[in-house]
């Protein structure tokens, strides 16, 4: 068992020892159910698929994941345990990765608990289970993307409220980066930059995975996004340790 695993284990256990786990999972299940059936017109559509369910995931994550991520580093910094953790024989990468993976695994657990939805749709009709499986993978990857952003912002401040609000705004930017709302900000920019910005869109990549195509480019997109934000986390912690 390496040091990443030791941190991972402790972090994951800490979610379940506090009300965070219960609150997060219950809210996630309730909202994803409510959105699917009421806003998504699950029954009225008369189609055996989970599109209305997965369509709301980016928006659910937008609120829930920054709430989960805000404590990652802000709490360590506030309570002073960051000094304890980083003077143990552990590298910054191991600490950042251990904490991130625990949070990601936790969202994976929450996501896995929506399995009754999958069973229901199979009872009602004959869905394309390959598409649903791909959508789950896509959703998990997207959750990882949101979390890595939250991790970095959480490292910037002691204040969890600030970490939450700033993360939500940045995540919103990533969700909407293919839309005029974000693109208009970059109105001055040359065309290649505009298409670069719009290619950052979570929605576009998530939607293409949700169609059932596990394209390597989409998977690579999410992993490089995570790598980038985790690298930023390491840098931020290193810079702001003294405060």
């Amino acid at each position, binding site marked *: 068992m390496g040091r990443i695993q*030791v941190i991972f284990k402790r972090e994951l256990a*800490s979610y379940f*020892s506090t009300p965070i786990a219960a609150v997060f999972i219950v809210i996630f299940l309730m909202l994803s159910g409510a959105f699917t059936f009421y806003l998504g017109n699950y029954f009225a559509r008369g189609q055996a698929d989970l599109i209305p369910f997965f369509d709301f995931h980016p928006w659910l994550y937008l609120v829930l994941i920054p709430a989960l991520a805000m404590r990652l580093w802000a709490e360590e910094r506030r*309570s002073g345990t960051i*000094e304890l953790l980083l003077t*143990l024989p552990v590298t910054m990468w191991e600490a950042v990765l251990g904490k991130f993976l625990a949070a990601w695994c936790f969202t994976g657990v929450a996501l896995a608990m929506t399995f009754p939805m999958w069973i229901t749709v199979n009872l009602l009709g004959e869905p394309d289970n390959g598409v649903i499986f791909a959508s789950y993978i896509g959703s998990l990857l997207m959750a990882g993307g949101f979390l890595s952003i939250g991790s970095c912002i959480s490292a910037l401040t002691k204040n969890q409220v600030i970490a939450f609000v700033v993360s939500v705004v940045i995540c919103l930017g990533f969700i909407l980066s293919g839309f005029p709302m974000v693109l208009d900000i970059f109105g001055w920019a040359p065309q290649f930059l505009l298409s670069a910005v719009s290619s950052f869109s979570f929605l576009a990549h998530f939607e293409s995975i949700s169609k059932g195509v596990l394209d390597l480019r989409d998977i690579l997109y999410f992993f490089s996004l995570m790598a980038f934000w985790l690298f930023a986390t390491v840098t931020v912690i290193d810079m702001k340790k003294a405060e």
Partner: protein
Amino acid sequence: MTTMVEIENLRKTFGPIVAVDGVSFSVGKGEVLGFLGPNGAGKSTTMKMITGFLTPTSGTVRVCGHDVQKEALAAKTRIGYLPEGAPAYHDMDMTPASFLTFIGEMRGFRGDTLKRSVSKTVEKVNLESVLDQPIETLSKGFKRRVGLAQAILHDPDVLVLDEPTDGLDPNQKHEVRTLIRAMAQEKAIILSTHILEEVHAVCSRAMIIAKGKVVFDGTPAEFEEQAPMHNTVLITVRGVETAIAQERFMTVTGVNKVEDLGKDGELVRLRIYPDEGQWTLPHISQFAREQGWDVQELYQDRGQLDDVFRLLTTPQQALS
């Protein structure tokens, strides 16, 4: 004496503020170095650089031969560190037992070795009674002991303790000091404190830092000698004129100055300053007896450590 910690020209700046300004010293095995200094003098910053938490602006720290920056992991395995305020994880179910297990696992202990080192440490710092209580609910004294326990769990060669007795009651302070003294033989210990008496109680060496610089480095006894009133003799005699007593005492060998501390009824109170390095108490005592004076009180003042501290750490006083 084996050198365990070597610090060379250590400097740390935060923007325009110079927190630590060219500090150099080394600490050997068996030494307990007490860091003294006003708040904001750079004690904690220096300790944070020794433990590798902060990166120095310039200068090097070597722990057991390992550069803390370049060979961070090797150095960190040799250090035990109690950060200021003894932080610990306050998750609801985090108990001293689970906390120490986590620290042990991070330090690479597994299975039986892990269990043995945890139980040995728990015994050392007397944590048995609260082992399974949430850390959150423990008293300050116990929390501090948990902090100490995590620092000594892996039996490190170098121990860095940032204000280990701060905020504890006198009994708890005594316990922590006893523990530190018990470990002193085997390790190099660096601790910071605000309590000057603590230097006497546990340290073999005192270092005073002011404005990021070392202004004093020596034994606690040498530290005491810096006191302006050190080795002065206080005497109270009855039935003599102040002026006469003053004049006569001046004739005693080794006396430099006799100060009148004011009359209290029949009692004349004087403070007698010796010449540099002179031991005047026996002469004064004998002289008073020979004169046939009625001595009510006679003792040698060791000097106030607080005075030395102020003298060394405030620039105005140092000039006067």
